[in-house]
C-alpha cells in the first residue's frame, strides 16, 4: 500500500528500537574494525581464530535481540561487547591471540570514540540514501536524460528491521531487501523500503548496501509512479534483475572513464 510521504522537516528514517539498535551498531562498528583483521588472521593461517572472533561478535549481538526488554544503554552494551570478545580472545593460542588482541584494542578505541560522540547508525544510512539520490540524479543528467526533480523530492526511504532471515532474490547470501513501492495519492511518489536483518548483518551485506540502494534508485525509482508495488516478472529469474544491474554498471564505468579522461591533470 502506498503511504503519504513524510514531511521533509523530520528525520526520514525513524530510530530502531533499542535492542535492534544495539545489535546493528555492535555489528557495524565491530565489522568496520574487525573485517580487515579477520582477513589478516586468515592470511596468517588462523582461519579458525578468524571464524571464532566473527562468530562471537555475531553471537553476542544476537543475544541482545532476544531480550527486547533489556534497558542497558547502547554505549554500555558496546563496552561489554568489547570485554566479552577480549575474554574470548584471551583463550586463543599465542600468535592468533596477539593479532586478535590488537584488533580488539582497535575496536575498544572505536567504541570509546563512539561513546564520546554517539550517533544513530540510521542517520548515517539516511545520509547514504541522500548521497545515492544525488548520485542517481547526476547520473541521469550526465546522460542527458531528463528526470523531473519532483520525482527525487517525492522519493522517501523507509527502514525496518526484520527478525528472520532475508536475502536478495537473486543473491540470497546478501541479507537485506530493498524494494520500491509507488503511490499516486496526493502526487506521484515512491517509497524505497530498506529491510535490515540485524541477526544476519555481515560484512558482505554491509558492503552491498550502498550498491543495492544505487541499483534501486537508478533502475527502479524512475520506473514509477505506478500504484502499488512493482511486479517482478519472475521472482526466480536472475536475468530479470541482472540486465538492469549490468547496464547501469557499464554506464557508470563508462561515465567514470569519460570524466577521468576529461579531468585536467
Amino acid at each position, binding site marked *: 500500500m502506498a503511504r503519504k510521504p513524510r514531511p521533509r522537516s523530520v528525520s526520514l528514517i525513524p530510530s530502531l528500537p533499542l535492542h535492534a539498535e544495539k545489535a546493528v551498531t555492535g555489528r557495524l562498528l565491530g565489522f568496520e574494525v574487525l573485517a580487515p583483521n579477520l582477513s589478516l588472521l586468515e592470511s596468517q593461517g588462523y582461519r579458525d581464530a578468524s571464524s571464532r572472533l566473527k562468530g562471537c561478535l555475531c553471537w553476542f549481538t544476537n543475544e541482545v535481540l532476544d531480550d527486547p526488554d533489556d534497558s542497558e544503554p547502547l554505549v554500555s552494551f558496546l563496552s561489554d561487547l568489547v570485554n566479552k570478545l577480549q575474554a574470548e580472545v584471551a583463550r586463543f593460542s599465542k600468535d592468533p591471540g596477539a593479532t586478535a588482541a590488537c584488533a580488539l584494542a582497535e575496536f575498544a578505541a572505536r567504541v570509546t570514540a563512539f561513546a564520546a560522540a554517539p550517533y544513530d547508525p540510521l542517520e548515517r544510512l539516511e545520509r547514504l540514501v541522500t548521497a545515492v539520490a544525488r548520485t542517481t540524479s547526476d547520473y541521469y543528467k550526465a546522460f542527458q536524460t531528463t528526470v523531473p526533480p519532483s520525482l527525487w523530492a517525492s522519493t522517501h526511504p523507509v527502514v525496518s528491521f526484520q527478525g*528472520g532471515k532475508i536475502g536478495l532474490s537473486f543473491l540470497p547470501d546478501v541479507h537485506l531487501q530493498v*524494494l520500491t513501492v509507488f503511490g499516486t495519492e496526493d502526487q506521484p511518489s515512491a517509497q524505497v523500503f530498506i529491510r535490515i536483518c540485524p541477526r544476519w548483518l555481515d560484512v558482505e551485506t554491509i558492503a552491498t548496501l550502498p550498491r543495492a540502494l544505487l541499483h534501486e534508485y537508478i533502475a527502479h525509482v524512475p520506473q514509477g509512479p505506478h500504484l502499488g508495488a512493482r511486479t517482478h516478472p519472475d521472482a526466480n529469474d536472475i536475468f530479470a534483475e541482472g540486465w538492469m544491474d549490468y547496464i547501469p554498471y557499464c554506464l557508470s564505468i563508462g561515465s567514470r572513464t569519460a570524466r577521468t579522461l576529461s579531468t585536467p591533470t
Partner: protein
Amino acid sequence: MDDENLTYFRGVLSAEQIQAEIARFWGELGSSPELDAELKAAGLDSGGLSSTQEADSITVHVGASGADPVSTLLIIVFAPTANRVLRDLWTTVLLPRIQRRWGEDSIGTKATAEVSESDT
C-alpha cells in the same frame, strides 16, 4: 463470526509467542505511561479496555499446518462481546508493538491480502 477474526501467514513468531506478547500487553495496561500514550494516540481508552481484559479476549490459533511452517496460518480471534474494539486494539497498537519488538516479519502478511512485491 469467522469474518470478524484476522488471519495471517506465520512469521518469525509462533502462536504461543504472540499469545505471550498479548499477555504482556494486558499485564502492562494501566501501569505503563508509554503504553497509555500509545493507546491515546490510537484513539483508544485504556480505562475502557480494562473492562474487556480477559484471558481469552484475544487469542491466537493455528489455522493450518503442514511440513512447511511458513505456510502455517495464524488466526487472531477476538471475543465477540467487544470484537470491534479488540480488533482496533490489535490493528493499531498490538500488532505494531509486536513488530517493533520482534521485527516487521514477526507476523506474516494477512492471508487475505494480495502479496505483490519484489526486491531490487
